């Protein structure tokens, strides 16, 4: 029953310099036992103090790893070859010691610890991980909650906003108690309650080309929950330049997208969208609305992918764009290819440092409207003085139903070019919308059509509700 055992070079001095031995045994375990009895110096190199084969010692029976067979119970017969093959590992001292788990943490994470793909080692990786969330809003809320609950050791968050009542329909990180409080403060309170083991690092600032590299550099994974194109391109480019994975999510009305942009292993956001859409073409959530549960689903997917990245397990959304349609309840998947000509991650990148993303996305490139705007208080005064003014409401009918300014005429922005005839081109006109952005576009359309006395209501109907008519509901 002689089996040939091949000895790798580093161990040969322990077996008298031989590269192969003939040994007896019916299983791999028996053969190794025999080997270490005959050559006792080998034992501590092959087996750890717990008696188990060391992780860097690989045993093959005729070209097959015993991990894929029956481990040490793998049967062997005369003529078989058992090879001991090294794998070689090491690393710097930092993560040497992945942080240990306290008894409280072991109890808290017990449902993770009994998962074969997480276990104690995985949970310690989560504890060692540093994850940065850009935005503590719709997507950042579920992502922050699940990542904190899962035991991510350090959660960084970038946001500069204050909790507003309109956020609460979807931003479940915040609550009625924290309306008016900075979002990061609100997030810190909620996370400390959910899991006090998490270190929260807050960056109460707008992410800019000046600070992005310094902030992102300190983290392992970035989850992007931004609501504007300038920041999205900024996050993408900074992650590519720093070699960080960027877990992307975006939502609009009833549809969402998610992917993992990791230039080391696949495409980046610019491979998918080399150029931003023209400003104003894609409305924001504030303009277009969003179903509250939708960011819950997409943000949770971002949390999931982040955890998989940290654990190094499973198939990631790298090179795949997940599309979710809430109304049809369908997930679809597009395969994304790396663009060899991508300006940031391609073969000959032209973007090698951060640029001016607001200019890139056309923000601020709109013509100046100085003198073209009227404040709600001035308008109220003019109306009270009996000045004949035609107020044109360019919002959508469902918005008009929520609240409207008395006497205003509803012509949704999209219909305006066809309905110019309904307006008198010599009259004083004031356009208004929700917050004052669409009404500026309406003003542009009207001026181009020859209307000379047009102004736009600054701050829209929302400013009207705050400053003129407190009885009016805000939305």
């Amino acid at each position, binding site marked *: 029953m002689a089996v040939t055992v091949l000895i*790798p*070079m*580093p*161990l*040969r*001095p*322990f077996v008298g310099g031989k590269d192969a031995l003939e040994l007896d045994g019916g299983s791999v375990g028996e053969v190794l036992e025999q080997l270490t009895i005959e050559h006792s*110096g080998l034992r*501590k*190199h092959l087996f750890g103090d717990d008696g188990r084969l060391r*992780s*860097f010692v*690989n045993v*093959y029976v005729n070209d097959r*790893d015993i991990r894929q067979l029956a481990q040490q119970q793998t049967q062997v017969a005369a003529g078989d070859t058992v090879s001991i*093959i*090294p*794998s*070689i*590992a*090491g*690393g*710097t*001292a*930092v*993560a*040497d*010691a992945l942080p240990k788990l306290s008894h409280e943490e072991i109890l808290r994470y017990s449902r993770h610890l009994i998962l074969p793909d997480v276990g104690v080692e995985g949970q310690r*990786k989560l504890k060692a991980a540093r994850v940065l969330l850009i935005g503590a809003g719709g997507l950042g809320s579920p992502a922050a909650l699940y990542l904190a609950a899962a035991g991510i050791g350090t959660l960084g968050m970038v946001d500069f906003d204050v909790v507003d009542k309109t956020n609460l329909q979807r931003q479940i990180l915040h609550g009625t108690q924290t309306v008016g409080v900075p979002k990061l403060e609100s997030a810190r309170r909620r996370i400390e309650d959910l899991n006090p083991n998490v270190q929260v690092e807050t960056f109460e600032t707008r992410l800019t080309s000046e600070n992005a590299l310094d902030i992102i550099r300190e983290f392992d994974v970035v989850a992007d929950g931004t609501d504007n194109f300038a920041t999205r391109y900024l996050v993408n480019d900074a992650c590519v330049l720093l*070699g960080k994975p960027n877990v992307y999510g975006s939502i609009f009305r009833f549809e969402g997208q998610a992917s993992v942009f990791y230039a*080391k*292993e696949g495409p980046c956001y610019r491979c998918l969208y080399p150029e931003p859409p023209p400003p104003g073409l894609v409305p924001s959530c504030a303009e277009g609305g969003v179903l509250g549960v939708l960011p819950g689903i997409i943000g949770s997917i971002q949390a999931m992918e982040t955890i998989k*990245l*940290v*654990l*190094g397990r499973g198939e990631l959304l790298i090179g795949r764009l997940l599309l979710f349609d809430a109304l049809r309840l369908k997930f679809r998947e597009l395969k994304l290819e790396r663009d060899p000509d991508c300006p940031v991650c391609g073969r000959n990148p032209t973007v090698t440092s951060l640029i001016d993303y607001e200019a890139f996305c056309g923000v601020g490139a709109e013509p100046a409207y100085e003198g073209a705007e009227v404040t709600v208080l001035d308008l109220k005064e003019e109306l009270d003085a009996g000045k004949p003014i035609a107020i044109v409401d360019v919002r959508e009918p469902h918005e008009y139903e929520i609240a409207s300014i008395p006497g205003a005429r509803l012509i949704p922005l999209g219909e305006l070019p066809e309905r110019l005839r309904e307006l008198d081109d010599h009259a004083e006109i004031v356009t208004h919308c929700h917050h004052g952005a669409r009404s500026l576009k309406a003003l542009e359309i009207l001026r181009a059509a020859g209307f000379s006395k047009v102004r736009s209501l600054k701050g829209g109907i929302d400013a009207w509700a705050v400053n003129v008519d407190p009885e009016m509901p805000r939305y």
Partner: protein
Amino acid sequence: MTLVLGPAQLAAIRQHGEADYPHEACGLLGGMLDGDRGVVVQLVPLANQRTDAARNRYLIDPEAFRRAQARLDRDELEVLGVYHSHPDHPPEPSAFDREQAWPRLSYVIVGVARGRAGEVKSWRLSDDRAGFAQEPIILEERKVAWQSPS
């Protein structure tokens, strides 16, 4: 033991460390034993297979090791050791390096601080696995060029 490297090999190890920064670079040292000198003849740079924690871990899995060894076998060379980089850390073996180490191999470590390769040191594990001892590195220009047939 003394490790003998060619100046070009030392430069290549440093370059590999810089190229893969901030991740750990790794590879094997192929060569011949000559008394108490391990003479490196060929470097086999390998991809770090730890994509989950490449900043502070490296891994050469058994398949990669087998392939590299097969390549060295053709040239009748042995695996004399391993090189790897320590991004933003000194070239001293960590406790993790020791836990994972094989005896009788040279462990060459290059410290790479902020993308720039610094000191290079070589270490060997003691036979009782208790610790690493530093071994001298000698630079020698070889007169005969070794070339892998591939």
